[in-house]
């Protein structure tokens, strides 16, 4: 759907400037290089347009129709009628709210946890480092659907063990049905999301940590800065770009959450998220028009997040790997 389109799309502007912004008079060699560049990048560029731009435009077009797959004869143009229905319906707004809540909470927890893990990986003894990184990365290597099932069965009232293991915690007993109310369902969904994707954020942060020059830290230590001061005043400001890229990537990812909710509650008890709503409308109900409109709105939300991150927080995507 629109989801896979966003990340590559962010990369396209970077590919074009060398060609377009070139000076009017270029040497033969520069032109040959530009040509070679196009030959090398061209096929990938064409394929990307075919698999991202085309479906996006198709979805935009479809979203203007009232169109049900099993009633092809009744297809009619309603212009922005689908958008009016969606934006006027509480189902959409509650799905948006739940999505935002999940995104904000998971990204915050993951940022703190991921940073701690990155520090551990960064400082760990060299002999342990490889093993430690592998161990931390294991959850990220597990397929989301599989991890969602694992967490679901852990907490499920008939087959789960959480209720008996944690019965000493106030509020948890054998009769607690985690997936029967909004708060507890969201707790499990967020916990499994955090467990699964913290390694990703910690890897990005580790790359940022590695960029911070040891000289700076040493200089600060000589000046008498405590560990906390060095972290807060030296390390973090110097890796701000890496942190912002990590937050942006994870926020975009978390915003499109689908698997966990689909497996655990399928949207019951007020846990419906935007991707699930789009899926259920266009795939489940076969309402291509309405579903496309929801997908377009989801796409716009994702663009908005990118825009906020890049323009307001000045995230420089190219600096993540030590550009500036």
């Amino acid at each position, binding site marked *: 759907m629109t989801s896979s389109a966003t990340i590559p799309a962010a990369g396209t502007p970077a590919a074009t400037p060398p060609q377009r912004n070139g000076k009017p008079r270029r040497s033969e060699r520069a032109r040959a290089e530009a040509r070679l560049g196009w030959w090398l990048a*061209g096929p990938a560029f064409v*394929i990307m347009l075919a698999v991202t731009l085309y479906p996006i435009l198709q979805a935009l077009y479809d979203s203007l129709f009232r169109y049900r797959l099993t009633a092809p004869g009744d297809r009619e143009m309603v212009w922005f009628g689908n958008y009016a229905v969606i934006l006027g319906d509480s189902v959409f707004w509650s799905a948006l709210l739940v999505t935002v809540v999940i995104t904000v909470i998971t990204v915050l927890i993951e940022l703190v946890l991921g940073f701690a893990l990155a520090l551990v990986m960064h400082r760990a003894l060299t002999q342990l480092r490889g093993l430690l990184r592998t161990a931390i990365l294991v959850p990220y290597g597990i397929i989301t659907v599989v991890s969602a099932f694992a967490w679901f069965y852990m907490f499920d009232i008939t087959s789960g063990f959480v209720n008996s293991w944690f019965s000493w915690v106030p509020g948890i007993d054998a009769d607690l049905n985690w997936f029967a109310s909004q708060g507890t369902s969201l707790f499990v969904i967020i916990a499994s999301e955090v467990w699964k994707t913290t390694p990703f954020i910690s890897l990005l942060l580790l790359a940022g940590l590695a960029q911070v020059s040891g000289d700076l830290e040493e200089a600060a230590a000589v000046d008498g800065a405590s560990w906390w001061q060095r972290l807060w005043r030296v390390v973090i400001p110097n890796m701000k770009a890496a942190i912002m890229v990590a937050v942006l990537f994870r926020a975009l990812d978390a915003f499109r959450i689908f698997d966990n909710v689909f497996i655990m*509650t399928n949207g*019951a*008890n007020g846990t419906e998220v935007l991707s699930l709503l789009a899926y259920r409308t266009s795939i489940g*109900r*076969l309402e291509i028009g309405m579903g496309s409109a929801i997908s377009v709105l989801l796409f716009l939300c994702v663009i908005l997040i990118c825009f906020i991150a890049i323009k307001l927080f000045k995230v420089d995507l190219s600096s993540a790997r030590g550009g500036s």
Partner: protein
Amino acid sequence: MRRRRRLGLLAAVMALTIPLAACGSDSGPPVLTWFINPDDGGQADIAQMCTDEAAGAYTIQTSVLPRDAGGQREQLARRLAANDSSIDLMSLDPPFIPELAEPGFLAPVPDDVAQRVSENVVQGALDGASWQDTLVTVPFWANTQLLWYRKSVAEAAGLDMSQPVTWRQIMDAAESQGKLLGVQGAKAESLTVWINALVESAGGSIIANQAESADQVQLGLDSDAGRQAAEIIGEIGRGPLGGPGLPTANENASLTLFQGDQASFMVNWPFVWSAMNAAVEAGTLDASVVEDTGWAIYPGVNDGEESAPPYGGINIGIGAFSNHVDLAYQAAECIVTPQHQAFYFATNGNPPSNTTAFDDPEVQDAFPMADTIRQSLQQAAPRPQTPYYNEVSLGLQETWHPPASVTPETSPQAATDLITAVLRGDRLL
């Protein structure tokens, strides 16, 4: 110059990819593709038997669909909407048949075939295989829910299980013994099955007419029958009878509950019988549980009125875009012979739609409750028949879940309002 080169590149990419979509192999008898729901291998066996019986007239090849009925419907509807000619035979879940029949995705059943495949078929299965009083699919196997009970609990509560019982009676009996009822309260298709059985048993119908277009669909929920159904579900949901697992209980969760200490009564499909026997064989279930298990016809709502048990199963649809419609109907007739239905019941546990198949000694041996199933199928009522079944079912689940929130005053009205608005395209689901 550059543009032309880019266009050339695009053309080259397309030229490389398009032929991949086409494929062909021609020699020998025509191959019919039968899209089947996953089972224990019975449909593949029947396909092989019919291929052998056809003696070279055709070969049936099976292709497995997704596990859940919703996924099966999605895949078939998308393929049929694209005029897929590779679909010859389809195993269809009855509620979705009108949706595929209405736009002409199913090849019409020839009159002579319709007559032959309707002989001795239980009424519930005939209703489920039809749309607007015309047979549009070939009835294959038919499922129904029975009332399963612990003999010890019924006896202790003094309930006479030789006579049909009502929901009120089993609720009182379970409550008097401090036990739980096995019903399906999860926000899923099983909840719609339960609601429909209650409404139909009370003499009503969720949908009042078999309308073709979305804005003509009329709901019958806001009626005495709808309110009675809401009262039963709400009472089980709010009281101690459902247990804490009720809002997430599907058929498997109910079975797990029924195998435990708090079991009393359960409404469920006959698969539970094979499942419990298999569990005893595997050593995970005490044999005394199976010995203590009885079965009866689905509970009614009103005293002295026959219940309308849930109806499920699979019917065979023939794709309208198939290149071999005639052969596909021959194959379908072969698939649904009473012998094959009996074989399927005895080996896979899926009950026949043809009454004569129940007399097969193998069937009587594997399923001692076969006669109850046959009677239940005669009484069974299909779920709402409408091309918009999915919306109706999801709308019900949206407004009647969790069970504790269901009340006769609000729930039928809320479901009617939501489903009507969704069908008009004014609201989301």
